Each structure stands twice: as C-alpha cells, then as structure tokens.
C-alpha cells in the first residue's frame, strides 16, 4: 500500500458545464457531416481468463472494458471495476461490482442492503410504526429498524474492519485504484500503478464513517470518466442508523452517485489514443444517477427489474412525520425517531450538479465527511456557506460528497384543507439545475440525471 496526495482534479466548473449544453449540441449536430475517421478495429480475444483464487476477507476487482447500454439504447464503450474477468464484447461485461460489505469480523459479504440483517423495506419505502395522533396525516417513524438498499459499485466497510483489495488490470495500459481521503490524516490510499496483466494489492483499516470515492486517478479525470470509479461507504455497526456516532440519525439512507459520460473520450481510449483532458474538454452526452438515466432512472421503463431497482436504490419515498432539526435522534416514544431520510450525494462525475428537490427542502449536515456547524458558520474560500441549513438547491462539485436530510415532512405551503383531504401519494420531481444534465444524446429531455420522491398517503 502506498499513499500520496490528491491528484490534479481537472473537472469542469459550473460555467463550463452550462456552456457545454450549447457546445455539446453543436458538436453532436455536426458529427454526421464532418465525422472523424473511424478508429482502427481492435481484435479482442474471446477467451475469458480465469479469475484469481479467492482468499477469505479479500475482495477481488477486475479492470474490465465493455459496452454499456444508454438510455437511448446506444451501446457506449466503458471501463469499470468488475467482480469477475470479462471480455469487451461480453454483453454482460462486468463493469461494476454488486455491493460488498467488509464486516468487523473479517468477512466480505455480498449484500444489496445495509445493515445486512435489517428488514428490507418493500419497494424501498420504510413503513411507519403507527399514526401520530397529535398530527393528523403524519406518523411515528421506526428507529434503527429498516435496511437501506445500495447501488452497484458500493463497497461498505464497517469501522474496525480492514479493507483488503486485489485489483487485476486486464487492459493494455496502466491503471490504478485510489481511495481518496481514506488514509491517515485523510491522505489517499492507492494500489499504485498496475501494469497490464498485473495485480495490485491494497489493504487499509476502515477510515472514519462517511463516503469516499474509489477511482482510477490515471490521467485524471479521464479514466474515472470512462467508468473506473465507485463508492466506499463506511458505517459504524454500533450506530448503523447514523452518519457517524453522535451525528445525524436517519430512518434509512440513499446513496446517490452522479456520473457523466463522454462517448468520444471513451472511444478514443478504446482505440488506444490517450485523451488530453485539457486540449479536449469533455462533452458529456449522458448523465446518470446510480447508473440510470431518464425514464429508467424514473422507474418508467418497460423492464420491471430496472424499475424496482430504481425504487429501491434511488427514488426516495416515505411517510410524513414531525422532525426536529436540532437533534435528529430525539426519541418521542420508544422505538421511534424524529428524523427524515439521509440522501448521500456523491459526484465522481465531470460536471457540477445542482440537486433540487421539489416539495421539501434538504437539510445539509456534512460535506466530505466533515460535519457542518449548527451555529457560527462561515464562508469558505469558494464562497460557500458552511453551516447546517435548509437548502433549496444543493451544489455538488466533482468529487464532492454531501449528506443531506430530506425531512419527509408535510410540504410547508400545503393548506389544512388540502392536507387533511389527501388520499393518495404525492410525488415530487428531483432535477438538477445544471440543465444540460437533464438531457441525453444531445437533446433528449428529460433523459438525464433525474429522479422523483414520494410522500406516501397516510396509512
């Protein structure tokens, strides 16, 4: 294991991404008239190599390449950290892992939920304990009860565990796996460069609770943008419904991972051409939330399994309740909690996002695993307010992680007549105010990074 400082981050700023909207459209528009020459074909072996012999307590990752279906049905070349070796033309190329959990007792479990033994919320929606008689239409919320579904690419590490990785580089160029801020003093931990065909090893104790991004820093941000990234979520098993001990409690949590894809970058790399991210800025054509876009992210696909996964992993839902932002963990009655649901925003992508929920504001509690103060906040060097607060729009820079509570409360502008007459679920959109990210394929709207959330009808 070696450590080094954060790599140069050549991500886009907000102004650039807004410009990309028009620039992207223009580039797309002339692809057909002034198309660059087709890349030389690259023959690939159709023999799938053997996987490493498994070792207890070790997670094996494979740097694979392959094609990923986009929301417009196109197949785009991507790379990724998979859980088995695959060949590029494999239609199920392993470009991401199913969620894994490093437990405190040294196991590596495959589990879509955490805590692994908690109750799965049907369709992702936690049911309340009972109606709240003092607040019609609202409910008491179960404390320390419901599991949370996690998206692919997620590695959970319990505090006290040791993360042990072997990374097999199956590609023809050098790759690396780095976990940002997970080392001593929030330094990075990394396998170091892994030669083609080589195996890199990385072992480190689970860092403090929070969200971390693992990615390939080679020629940043190019390899990350082509798909070599994922999330490390560190949880304290003794406080599994808090972002960290003595910090915000939640009913359940959602891990939202943003990503943007420039197929041009990907195709150049596939052809063996190293992309210069400065000379050739990215023009993302697809924007994804937990690897889904548009109607698939919104669970309106004809494929029920995609829809179910979107509901379980991304589409926030729950029952109205009273919350107290002064202390989310306050008990009102035995087994209940006055808290909302925690949305952990993670942006390994290329562009600034402006996450905007309708219906409720979000209460931002942490950024990059640092809890924000509740009073005496300040303005940081970039002009951001550092203070826990209600936010209408949550800014998310590339490589940023923010923990935000959605209160699941009665929308403040709802009249009594409307609220007491409510008989059905209320749905609200979530969209990104960086508008190009709402499109796909140069203009399909709403084909990008979109979601919605539901305030379920009273029981």
């Amino acid at each position, binding site marked *: 294991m070696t450590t080094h400082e954060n790599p140069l981050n050549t991500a886009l700023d907000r102004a650039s991404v807004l410009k990309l909207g028009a620039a992207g459209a223009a580039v797309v528009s002339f692809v*057909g008239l002034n198309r660059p020459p087709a*890349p030389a074909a690259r*023959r690939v072996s159709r023999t799938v190599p053997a996987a490493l012999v498994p070792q207890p307590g070790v997670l094996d990752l494979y740097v694979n390449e392959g094609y990923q279906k986009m929301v417009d*049905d196109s197949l785009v070349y991507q790379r990724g950290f998979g859980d088995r070796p695959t060949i590029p*033309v494999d239609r199920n190329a392993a470009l991401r892992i199913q969620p894994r959990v490093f437990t405190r007792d040294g196991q590596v479990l495959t589990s879509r939920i955490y805590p692994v033994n908690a109750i799965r919320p049907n369709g992702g929606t936690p049911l309340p304990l009972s109606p709240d008689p003092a607040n019609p239409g609202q409910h008491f919320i179960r404390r320390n009860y419901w599991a949370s579904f996690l998206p692919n690419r997620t590695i959970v590490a319990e505090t006290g565990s040791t993360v042990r990785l072997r990374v097999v580089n199956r590609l023809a160029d050098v790759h690396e796996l780095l976990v940002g801020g997970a080392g001593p003093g929030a330094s990075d931990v990394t396998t170091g460069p892994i030669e083609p065909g080589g195996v890199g090893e990385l072992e480190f104790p689970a860092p403090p609770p929070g969200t971390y991004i693992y990615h390939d820093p080679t020629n940043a941000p190019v390899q990350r943008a082509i798909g070599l990234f994922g999330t490390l979520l560190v949880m304290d098993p003794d406080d599994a419904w808090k972002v960290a001990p003595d910090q915000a409690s939640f009913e359940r949590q959602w891990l939202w991972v943003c990503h943007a894809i420039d197929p041009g970058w990907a195709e150049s790399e596939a052809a063996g051409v190293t992309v210069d991210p400065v000379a050739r800025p990215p023009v993302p054509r697809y924007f994804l939330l937990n690897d889904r876009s548009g109607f698939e992210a919104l669970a309106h696909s004809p494929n029920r399994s995609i829809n179910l996964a979107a509901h379980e992993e991304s589409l926030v839902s729950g029952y109205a309740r009273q919350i107290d932002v002064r202390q989310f963990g306050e008990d009102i009655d035995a087994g209940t909690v006055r808290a909302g649901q925690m949305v952990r925003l993670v942006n390994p992508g290329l562009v600034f996002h402006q996450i905007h929920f309708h219906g409720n504001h979000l209460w931002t509690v942490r950024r990059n695993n640092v809890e924000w103060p509740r009073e005496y906040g300040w303005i940081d060097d970039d002009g951001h307010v550092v203070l826990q607060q209600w936010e209408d729009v949550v800014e998310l820079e590339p490589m940023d992680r923010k923990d935000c509570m959605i209160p699941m409360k009665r929308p403040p502008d709802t009249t009594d007549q409307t609220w007491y007459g409510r008989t059905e679920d209320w749905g609200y959109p979530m969209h990104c105010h960086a508008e190009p990210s709402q499109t796909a394929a140069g203009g399909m709207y709403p084909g990008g990074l979109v979601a919605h959330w539901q305030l379920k009808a009273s029981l």
Partner: protein
Amino acid sequence: MGGTWDGARIADPDMGEEVEDRAGSGLSRRRFGLAMGAAIAAGAGGLSAAVTLLASGPPGTVGVPTSFGAARITSAQRQARLAESTSTTPAGHAGAHAAAGSTSPQPVNMTYGDHLLLRLEIANDTDAEIAFSPGLLRVLPNSEPWWIVNRRSDLHNGAIPPGGRVSANISFLVPSNATRFSAEFTDVGQGVPVRLELPVPSVSWRPGYLEAGHDDA
C-alpha cells in the same frame, strides 16, 4: 410484422420475458418457439447466416460486412406522425411522396412530424455472442445536421447468439422536410466501436398516421 431472433434466445435475462412488448407485436414465447424452429431448419442448409444475408434480399437493399457477419436494412417506410384532425398547422396532403418530403401535420411541441420505420437485419457468423441494441442504428435526414436515435423498436437490447440472425423493426421520428436519409450502424463486435454506413432502400409512403398503423407495420 414483428421482430425475430432466429436461433436466438431473448438476450438479457433482466429484459426478456419480463419485459412488456413495446410495439405490441414483438416476440412472444410462442413466436420465439416458431423462430427457433425456423432457425434450426435454415441451419441445415449449410450456408452461414451472414453469407445468406449478403447474398440475397429485397430489391434495392444492400448488405454490409461487419466484424462479426453482416447487416442490412431491408425495408423503409415513412408515415405521418399525426392525424390531420390533430394538426396544429393547416392539414397537409397525406399522400405526399417521401422523395419530395411531406406536408404532414406538425406537432405543437416542435418535434418531428413524420415517422420512419426501418427493418434491420443482422447476422452473426462468429462462435460468440454479439451484443445488440436498437440504438446501434441511427439515421441522418438530409434536412438536418442531427443524427437521430430510435423512437421505438420491437426488440430490446440483448445478444445475437453464435450463428444467429436478428430482424428488428426500428422506428424514428423524422422531420417532414427531409427527402433523403442516411443510416449508420455501430459495430460493437470488437474492442473499439466502428460506425458503418448502411444503405437505405427506397422509402415507401405509408398511408394513415403513426398511432393507427405502426404496431402492425
């Protein structure tokens, strides 16, 4: 006229039988069984799927070699998207010929007023599965600089098995003032995607409008 997968299994276990038929005329379990039978019979003839595809086809269609076999557009039909009664502009002449563009009613949301239905055939001559998705086919109208992605297809993404052949109806919304179309097929049979131009056969004009006539095209 639904899509078929000769000798194929519906590709993605997540997107197979569980998936609703988009066009209402796709591959049901019964039709899949029929296709399997047809493929087995065809295989006894001894010709590879790609050779068959390249060698013969409807008049005016051209097969193009790919890294794994061949691809061809075997028919092209064009139709008004909206009925005249729903027109937001003065009703056009429904019988306008495709070669001169059309005067179809235009949708109020400024999207395209015509509908182009292409039938794509692909043959896989390799001994490995080849990924397929209707998004591999895109069209370029001569009146716009945009490549257009599909609106709908009767086959979902999946894989063409070794020796298999697929036939899919893929539809696009296209501008009414277009008089000619180009088509490109993305060959993902290798480690690098390669775009191939597929000749578009003569476009025939189909009476009626999209909602009435697409699903049983």
